[in-house]
């Protein structure tokens, strides 16, 4: 498999996964599934980074993409911790995980 074929198929896969993440955020009603869909979108972007890292190679800054993926992973971990704490707090107040129930800030 040539590098070009590998890179373009991983970019297409990344686009597909990102679209599925968007669909999940828009269609699902459970706040945890919405959160999982956001994680799916983060993973799709990571895949695009890794594919293009492969394309640019070690000399031309491909390793910067790897470092970027490392930071995305770290931020995703921090985001999951805070986000799930918020989910627990919401569940305590409203006794549900339905996103439509959380409308306190709605104008």
């Amino acid at each position, binding site marked *: 498999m040539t590098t070009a074929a590998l890179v373009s198929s991983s970019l297409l896969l990344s686009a597909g996964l990102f679209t599925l993440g968007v669909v999940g955020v828009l269609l*699902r009603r459970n706040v945890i599934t919405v959160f999982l869909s956001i994680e799916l979108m983060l*993973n799709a972007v990571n895949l695009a980074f890794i594919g293009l890292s492969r394309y640019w190679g070690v000399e031309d800054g491909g*390793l910067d993409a790897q470092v970027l993926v490392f930071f995305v992973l770290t931020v995703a971990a921090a985001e*999951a911790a805070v986000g799930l704490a918020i989910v627990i707090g919401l569940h305590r107040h409203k006794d549900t995980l339905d996103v439509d129930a959380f409308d306190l800030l709605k104008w």
Partner: protein
Amino acid sequence: MNLEVLNSILFYFFAALALVSALYMVSQRNPTYSAFSFIVTLVSLSVIYALLGSPFIAVLQIVVYAGAIMVLFLFVLMLLNVKAEDRVPESGRLRALVLVLALAFLAQVGTVFARARFTRPDTHFWAATREVAIVLFSEKYVYVFEATSVLILAALVGAIVLARRDDAKKDV
């Protein structure tokens, strides 16, 4: 040559697995099933990272995502005793609108990616831990790295503050 064929078979198999499990994840009413399906997606992506020559990120994906983050998700799911969405979740009109928008988005991004020409010559690529670490701990990323450690500390404190019960505040 044989290894090349095996690599392509593995790549397309795990790419299909990632797509199918992601589709199952977003179409599932029960969030516990969604979470387990997402673990399959994460592991497939890890294999794809390894096939793309990034073993460090592949291992990190398993350890951080499938290990730490998904355990956190499942922990919360079991803590809250989550049931499947019981009411009819979405109207048919909204569902159709979302699907049309998603297909438009996919067509747009897919066209850009499909029309891109990757003309650089094939080179050997293997971003081992050593190479990544040399870039990560270089002067270029020193402030980002330190900012990340502050971010993790803030997330740690924030998660504890947000998740504890209100009556626990009296003890402080």
